[in-house]
């Protein structure tokens, strides 16, 4: 308490600039007078009495210094004084100040920007209560290559009753037709078990949530809607509760509106933008009867019992899995090696961006370090120019510690000014920067300039201030007064050590920027290789437009119940769309057939049962199928290798047929002809599908993965609901969406038409994540290169300046100007080569770290490792040439007279 009060009084004094030196003076006078009086009484002469009194009092200077210190806050006062002084000196050299501040602003601004993204995505917990208890359940079948295969309802019930979790929720979903408003709308929905919101821990803003105890086997017909949908489609109707919604022709009623700003945790951008949540037990129609296998293609999340660690939960989970395997050996064959992994929910959401984001943070940190090295170099150059000033101060009695503190506060001021400029620029360009971030980044909405980001900025500001301030302060520590003063500002100001420090900085800068540039070149080459990948399909002049047929819970409400019923619709849509201006070819397929533009949910995984090979269903490999109309292959230029493709005679009543790609034939029918073989794709019905043709591999799944086995089924024999209409020709991309909508809705006015895109756009988008990190890294690398170039330029100019006199003498003695040029260039090249050597070694280590993000190039790509150092040396040559030329043109007379 007491010290607090004391500091309070002192702080108030300090703030009010109140000082009471008069009081001490008066007290001292009185004190001395009284002591003198007493000494006089003891019989001393007046002079002696006074002398003894003063002696006894002690050093007046020290006393009043102590007294003054106690009055205010001396450290703070000193700091303010130093800062004022620093600001004054900076104002006197605006060029230096601007360069240094801009360099720091760039470094700190960029680092803070990247950190704010890292902070929002990786560091902040998910915005739900007790986020640590949330896990995703991942079912794997490593024995037969199954990853995240989903869960069955009996398994869900086992997990619910296991005591490991407070809640377990199953999550399905996709998009659904919302009709009733002005235009049929396609809306993202999630289909969850009724305990979902109890699990997440979020309540609706308006109305009630689902009843977690609800045992309805199928859909409960209750809907929760997002705040956004409520405002957009219902005009924020306060009486929305109990009103009806028509989704895929089924009637639901709204029971609640979620709070504004609530986002579903979600694994894809689409899921995070969910606007309707529906509850279902997944055990009644339209879901199949609850059996252990096959599993439903659902996601599952859970909330752990409070206090249970994820490791403890995992080991209890493992025990549960093995006891279930014993109990139901038919459903869980040992060969499949069923496991359930508990992954922290946050990790499952942001796990795949951790590596690129960490890479970017490291890269921007390197840029900041290079910036610091540059500023340190500038400061060192200034320190040698100011060596005399500092020596004079020291000679006049300034303590070294005090001088070092003053130099450090100067660098701190620089650092803070730079940081303020950097953050101001950042705030000014915030919108622009946010727009650069690809939409697929999870938790994009959480990015903000919050306290932890500002704290981080403060920390790196102080750290950089210390980093680049230490060098000149360290030099000031060991100034030899006599030497500096005797030189009287002539000749060599920088000691050998000083220029050694500057050389070390330049070598470091070179090495760091080399590492960055090599990383950028490696990413660039990966990107280029992906871009140039042989797609296997022709994306030019192709547009896709999506529509979706309703899947009502009541089969009687479905006008497209059978393949034949739907084939009529498909033929009519294709016929009408073909008449649109510019259109040459049309085809139709499902979402899985839409190249590179579908999520995991859009695929149709089938257990592949080859006739005469696979017997039990649950040991069959799983393959993805796309449903397409016969024209699809021609439209996308996917060439037929063997057999035939579909034609219009393949209909519901004829033999079921399929086309496979080359990868599929190679994987599952090695060394034999797959055409004519039969497979069963629906274990419930013993109905065989005959393979009629093999087509070339197309990169429709992912650009990076080569040759994914793919099976194509005929649209007229299946009932695809999630449709993509493909058009090729000289298309008017602006008019097509509306024209297609008219044509489709003239066939069935209840169908939504949406998602019109050119395939080229899709292709570009699928690379956006990679392009983002590559572009930023390339930007950083260029900046680093520029800074390193400036650094070497600064050092060589300085060296030339120092040696002007020497060069003058050499020239006067008859040295060739070319040999002077050579000497200077040699000096610069020495630094650049040393930097390049260190950098290559560091890059060899660092590039292994980014190997996971490379495609088509090895982390030790010889091109990158030869070209980049060469480029760096060219930059160094250019940077050294200017000062070298200046050295060559030194006029010996001027140089000597300068002495």
């Amino acid at each position: 308490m007491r010290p607090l009060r004391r500091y309070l009084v002192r702080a108030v004094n300090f703030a009010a600039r109140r000082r009471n030196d008069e009081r001490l003076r008066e007290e001292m006078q009185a004190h001395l007078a009284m002591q003198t009086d007493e000494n006089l009484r003891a019989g001393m002469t007046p002079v002696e009495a006074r002398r003894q009194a003063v002696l006894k009092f002690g050093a007046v200077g020290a006393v009043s210094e102590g007294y003054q210190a106690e009055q205010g806050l001396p450290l703070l006062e000193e700091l303010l004084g130093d800062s004022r002084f620093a600001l004054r000196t900076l104002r006197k050299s605006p060029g230096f100040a601007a360069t240094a501040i801009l360099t720091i602003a760039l470094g700190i601004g960029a680092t803070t920007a990247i950190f704010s993204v890292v902070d929002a995505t990786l560091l902040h917990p998910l915005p739900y209560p007790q986020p640590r208890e949330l896990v995703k359940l991942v079912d794997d079948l490593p024995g037969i290559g199954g990853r995240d295969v989903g869960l069955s309802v009996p398994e869900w019930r086992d997990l619910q009753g296991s005591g490991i979790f407070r809640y377990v929720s199953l999550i399905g979903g996709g998009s659904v037709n919302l009709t009733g408003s002005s235009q049929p709308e396609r809306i993202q929905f999630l289909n969850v078990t009724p305990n979902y919101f109890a699990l997440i821990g979020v309540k609706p803003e308006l109305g009630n949530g689902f009843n977690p105890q609800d045992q309805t086997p199928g859909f409960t017909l209750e809907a929760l809607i997002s705040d956004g949908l409520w405002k957009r489609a219902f005009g924020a109707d306060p009486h929305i509760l109990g009103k009806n919604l028509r989704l895929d022709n089924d009637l639901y009623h709204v029971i609640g509106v979620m709070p504004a700003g609530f986002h579903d945790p979600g694994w894809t951008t689409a899921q995070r933008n969910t606007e309707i949540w529906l509850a279902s037990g997944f055990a009644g129609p339209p879901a199949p009867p609850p059996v252990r296998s096959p599993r439903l293609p659902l996601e599952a999340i859970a909330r752990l019992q409070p206090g249970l660690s994820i490791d403890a939960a995992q080991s209890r989970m493992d025990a549960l899995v093995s006891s279930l395997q014993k109990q139901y050996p038919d459903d869980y064959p040992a060969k499949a090696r069923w496991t359930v992994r508990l992954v922290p929910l946050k990790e499952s959401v942001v796990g795949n961006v951790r590596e690129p984001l960490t890479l970017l943070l490291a890269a921007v940190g390197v840029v900041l370090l290079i910036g610091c090295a540059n500023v340190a170099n500038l400061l060192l150059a200034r320190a040698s120019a100011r060596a005399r000033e500092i020596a004079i101060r020291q000679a006049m009695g300034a303590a070294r510690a005090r001088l070092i503190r003053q130099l450090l506060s100067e660098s701190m001021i620089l650092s803070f000014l730079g940081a303020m400029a950097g953050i101001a620029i950042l705030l000014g360009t915030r919108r622009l920067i946010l727009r650069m971030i690809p939409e697929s980044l999870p938790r994009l909405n959480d990015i903000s300039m919050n306290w932890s980001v500002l704290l981080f900025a403060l920390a790196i500001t102080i750290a950089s201030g210390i980093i680049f301030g230490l060098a000149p302060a360290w030099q000031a520590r060991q100034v030899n007064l006599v030497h500096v003063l005797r030189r009287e500002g002539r000749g060599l100001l920088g000691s050998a050590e000083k220029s050694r420090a500057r050389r070390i900085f330049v070598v470091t800068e070179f090495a760091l920027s080399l590492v960055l540039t090599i990383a950028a070149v490696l990413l660039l080459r990966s990107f280029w290789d992906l871009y140039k990948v042989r797609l296997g399909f022709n994306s030019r002049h192709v547009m896709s437009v999506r529509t979706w047929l309703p899947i009502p819970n009541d089969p009687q409400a479905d006008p497209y119940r059978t393949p034949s019923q739907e084939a009529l619709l498909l033929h009519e849509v294709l016929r009408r769309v073909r008449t649109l201006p510019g259109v040459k070819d049309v085809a139709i397929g499902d979402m899985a057939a839409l190249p590179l533009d579908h999520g995991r949910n859009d695929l149709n995984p089938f257990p592949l049962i080859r006739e005469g090979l696979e017997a039990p269903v649950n040991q069959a490999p799983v393959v993805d199928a796309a449903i397409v109309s016969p024209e699809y292959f021609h439209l996308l230029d996917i060439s037929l290798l063997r057999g035939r493709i579909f034609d219009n005679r393949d209909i519901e009543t004829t033999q079921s047929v399929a086309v496979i790609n080359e990868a599929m034939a190679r994987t599952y029918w090695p060394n034999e002809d797959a055409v004519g073989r039969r497979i069963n794709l629906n274990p419930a019905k013993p109905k065989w599908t005959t393979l009629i043709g093999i087509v070339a591999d197309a990169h429709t799944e992912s650009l990076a993965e080569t040759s994914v086995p793919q099976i194509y089924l005929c649209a007229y024999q299946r009932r695809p609901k999630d449709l993509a209409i493909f058009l090729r020709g000289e298309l008017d991309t602006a008019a097509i969406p509306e024209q297609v909508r008219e044509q489709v809705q003239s066939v069935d006015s209840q169908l939504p038409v949406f998602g019109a895109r050119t395939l080229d756009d899709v292709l570009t988008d699928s690379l956006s994540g990679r392009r983002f990190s590559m572009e930023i890294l390339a930007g950083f690398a260029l900046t680093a290169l520029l800074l390193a170039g400036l650094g070497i330029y600064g050092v060589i100019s300085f060296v030339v300046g120092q040696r002007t006199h020497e060069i003058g003498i050499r020239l006067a003695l008859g040295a060739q100007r070319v040999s002077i040029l050579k000497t200077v260039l040699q000096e610069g090249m020495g630094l650049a080569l040393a930097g390049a050597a260190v950098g290559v070694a560091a890059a060899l280590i660092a590039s292994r770290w980014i190997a996971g993000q490379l495609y088509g190039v090895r982390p030790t790509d010889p091109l990158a490792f030869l070209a980049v150092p060469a480029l760096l040396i060219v930059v160094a040559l250019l940077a050294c040439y200017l000062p070298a030329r200046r050295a060559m043109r030194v006029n010996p007379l001027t140089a000597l007279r300068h002495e």
Partner: protein
Amino acid sequence: MKQKTDVKQGTLALMVLRTLDVLGPLHGYGVARRIEQISGDLLALNQGTLYPVLLKLEHEGAIASEWGTSENNRRARFYRLTSEGRKVLQAERREWDQTAAIMGRFFDVKSEDLV
């Protein structure tokens, strides 16, 4: 001549408080003289060092001060103990007694006591 001890860090403030506690309000010179007197002239005290300590104690609220007139009609600043200061003194004194007692036991201990 007797060897004089330096004033140990922190003890000067306590001496000031105790002096004011025993003798009531005093000016700076008075405090200095009394401390010398009480310590039996064994302390090497630069009298001036007292003033920053007095100011610190005043900032802490342990003492208060005001201008007054000395016995020889000189204008001087008089310091007195506040009730807060008295509490501080008592607490500190207990601590010193305890420390002294503990140290005393260590100095007095003989090997036979510890069998």
